């Protein structure tokens, strides 16, 4: 525990030396975050291997709860991606951000504070510490999103994010107040049996689901997410998408771990929301032209997958089916770590592309595979993992959820309940296929083919400080994908926190040794094949998309939009793409333009109007702000009088 607190302090202080140093501030910050990662990972891994973690306790009568910060297996598990991604991002920013703008020292400071808030949040075991760390996270993240505040688009994204996150926090305040009323104190503790079925239990579930849903980016509460992720610096997007969204999941997981008997409809609601977020998230991603927005929509999709797993686990808990419960929760939790690894990797590679070309627009990139081989390899690894293909880590977690849903299909489920596993299976399959299509589009448009613009043609490979963190993340993805059995005991211990202990059976349940074995055999086979097929036919350099045409041109290749057009049209009912078709007339038509984009319907048609309405309503409060000092003093006097009268009466 003390090691972990030390890590927290190191992270919080990581940006401070940079305020005073003229040079090398970034290196010092990365070093301190590296120290924090080593200390924190050591402490977390010890807890995950079964050593009790300890707690910070403050016995104050007025706050009335035993613990404030507890390093339990759940906290240790969620701390791992926080530590890994923050140090990767800090290292990456050395090449990516250093010296780019005047606000670099401030950015480093806030980055360290965000990491520290996240570390405190995972350990929080009292409403006070939780909300404190939650707000710390929200505000530091807002400052980081606003890093490039000279762009109007960035400012808009920042404000939308701030409003969304505070709406969520408001709901959480209500939820924790309700919880404190039930417990009599504000500490985290298991709820009494039978409470979940009452109206109070329903209100708690709804408030927590909405409050944490805002942070996690569950559809339809996701509207802040794509603009904020696109506007933030790439290493910040990696941390936000990889870790900060997961804090919403952490909250939901903590809440579910308190409930001994969740009603069946809770699991159903989680599954329904997960299916909605997953399918629509990837569908919206298909229509994007902005690389980072595309990745942001994929975060929504992956949050959907995690919710599917959580819903499956909750269903298993309600039905008393330990297999479903263990596989569901374990799959969801593992996907939390997995998504943070491969999404971090993807955002960092997208940042490299942005760094090299200065644009995030897919239609202006292309052919970067030859110019940036390492980056394109990293992006390919990330895409491979996010699509859930073996032998990378995305496969393992989705495999657990698939398996849990199949096991849930048996006759012991009872009549009328067969639907939920079927929904999970169908939506997982649909999500997987669409994700594959989407990443084929993204990877193809950015790295394959011919450069579509001059800037893409002049791109250069990223510096080593940027490639190193990408390589580390890719290795972590491969390690979990090839040898999941190594991580199974820890995962089982975390899944045990969710209810009756069954986590020890996890490796056998999921056939995890088999995965490693098959991976090993297939890897050897591939190696042999590669040796045998070494004498390939002579390489012949031709322009891509030649097609036998005499004067090929970069404009003749598939664009990102045209590649995805069929699917986007098929999903027209949900995506509502805005297409500006040119009118072509006459025998010799003039050159013209075709444009299509997929705006976010929730943001444009629901959230933004609601926001405008609120602002107009809030303007009425301006009447109270007269500007005259006596009037303000009068308010004080009236309040004082009212309090006195209230006290006496």
């Amino acid at each position: 525990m003390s090691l972990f607190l030390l890590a927290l302090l190191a992270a919080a202080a990581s940006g401070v030396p940079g305020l005073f140093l003229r040079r090398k501030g970034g290196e010092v910050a990365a070093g301190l975050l590296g120290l924090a990662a080593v200390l924190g990972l050591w402490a977390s891994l010890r807890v995950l291997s079964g050593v009790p973690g300890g707690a910070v306790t403050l016995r104050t009568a007025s706050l009335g709860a035993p613990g404030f910060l507890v390093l339990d297996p759940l906290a240790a598990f969620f701390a791992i991606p926080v530590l890994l991604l923050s140090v990767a991002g800090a290292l990456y920013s050395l090449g990516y951000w250093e010296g780019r703008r005047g606000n670099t020292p401030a950015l480093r400071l806030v980055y360290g504070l965000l990491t520290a808030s996240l570390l405190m949040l995972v350990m929080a075991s009292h409403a006070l510490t939780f909300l404190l760390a939650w707000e710390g996270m929200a505000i530091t993240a807002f400052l980081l999103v606003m890093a490039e505040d000279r762009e109007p688009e960035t400012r808009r994204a920042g404000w939308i994010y701030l409003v969304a996150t505070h709406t969520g926090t408001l709901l959480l305040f209500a939820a924790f107040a309700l919880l404190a009323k039930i417990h009599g104190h504000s500490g985290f503790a298991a709820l009494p049996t039978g409470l979940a079925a009452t109206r109070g239990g329903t209100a708690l579930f709804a408030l927590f689901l909405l409050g944490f849903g805002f942070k996690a980016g569950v559809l339809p509460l996701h509207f802040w997410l794509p603009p904020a992720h696109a506007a933030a610096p790439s290493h910040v997007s990696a941390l936000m998408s990889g870790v900060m969204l997961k804090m919403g999941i952490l909250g939901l997981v903590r809440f579910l771990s308190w409930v001994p008997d969740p009603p069946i409809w809770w699991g159903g609601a989680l599954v329904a929301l997960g299916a909605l977020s997953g399918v629509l998230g990837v569908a919206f991603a298909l229509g994007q032209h902005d690389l980072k927005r595309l990745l942001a929509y994929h975060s929504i999709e992956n949050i959907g997958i995690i919710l599917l797993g959580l819903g499956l686990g909750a269903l298993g808990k309600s039905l008393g089916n330990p297999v479903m419960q263990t596989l569901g929760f374990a799959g969801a939790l593992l996907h939390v770590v997995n998504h943070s690894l491969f999404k971090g990797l993807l955002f960092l590679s997208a940042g490299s592309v942005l760094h090299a070309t200065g644009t995030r627009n897919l239609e202006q990139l292309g052919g970067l595979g030859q110019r940036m081989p390492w980056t394109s390899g990293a992006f390919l690894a990330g895409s491979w993992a996010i699509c859930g293909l073996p032998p990378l880590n995305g496969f393992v977690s989705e495999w657990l959820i698939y398996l849990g849903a199949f096991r849930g299909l048996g006759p012991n489920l009872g009549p009328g309940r067969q639907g939920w596993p079927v929904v999970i299976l169908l939506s997982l399959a649909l999500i997987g296929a669409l994700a594959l299509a989407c990443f084929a589009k993204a990877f193809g448009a950015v790295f394959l083919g011919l450069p579509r613009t001059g800037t893409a043609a002049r791109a250069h490979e990223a510096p080593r400080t940027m490639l190193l963190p990408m390589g580390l993340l890719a290795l972590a993805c491969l390690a979990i994908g090839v040898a999941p059995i190594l991580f199974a005991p820890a995962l089982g211990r975390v899944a045990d926190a969710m209810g009756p202990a069954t986590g020890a059976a996890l490796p056998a349940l999921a056939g995890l040794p088999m995965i490693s074995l098959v991976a090993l055999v297939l890897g050897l086979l591939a190696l042999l094949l590669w040796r045998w097929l070494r004498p390939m036919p002579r390489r012949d350099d031709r322009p891509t998309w030649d097609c036998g045409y005499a004067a090929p041109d970069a404009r003749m290749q598939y664009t990102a939009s045209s590649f995805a057009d069929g699917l986007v049209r098929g999903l027209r009912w949900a995506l509502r793409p805005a297409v500006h078709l040119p009118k072509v007339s006459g025998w010799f038509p003039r050159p013209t333009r075709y444009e299509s984009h997929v705006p976010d319907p929730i943001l444009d048609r629901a959230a933004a109007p609601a926001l405008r309405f609120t602002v107009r309503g809030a303007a009425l409060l301006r009447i109270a702000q007269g500007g005259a000092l006596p009037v303000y003093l009068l308010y004080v006097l009236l309040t004082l009088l009212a309090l006195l009268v209230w006290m006496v009466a």
Partner: protein
Amino acid sequence: MMPDLLIALTMLSNFSLVATSRVSKAIQFAVFQGVLLGLMPLAMGLGRHFHIVLLAIAAVTVKGWLIPFLFRRALKQVHIQREVDPYIGYTVSLMLCALGTGLSLVLAHNLPLKPGTEYTLLVPASLATLFTGFLLLVSRRKALTQVVGYLVLENGIYLFGLLLVEDMPALVEAGILLDLFVGIFVMGIVINHIRVAFDSTDTRHLAELKD
């Protein structure tokens, strides 16, 4: 007998404060009130405590010498003598002050107080002085008169503190004096700045600063 007389004089000076239109008169009344209150602990027979004697000396010095000195300087700088058209007229102010005094008597009667308090008039007088201070702050336009209101407000708080003076450490009492001094000091600077910025000490101009 003596404390009751001082308290009565304090309450009377409240009425004079809200009824006067001359700024220098208001300052004189506030200073008079401050000196009265500074003598209050001695009159209450607390002279046997050394730190309370010190407090009384400090209070009389600050309120009877330092604050009038600062006020005279400010007055010379801003050249005003009268509070012209206040937000609330003098007659109405007087009536409000009477109302406040009555209300504080009622409130103090119902307040749960430490049993065995000798001076039953102390709490109503303190509340009445608080209200008077607020009234001056709310109803007057000139920054200088507002400072007087602030001073009277502090007098009310001081009076309330006397109730606990035997239990209160000297530090807290010194804190009140320091707070007061800093308040006057800052307000003096603010007044000067308002005058420089708007060429008048009318606080109405401050409304231009609102969002």
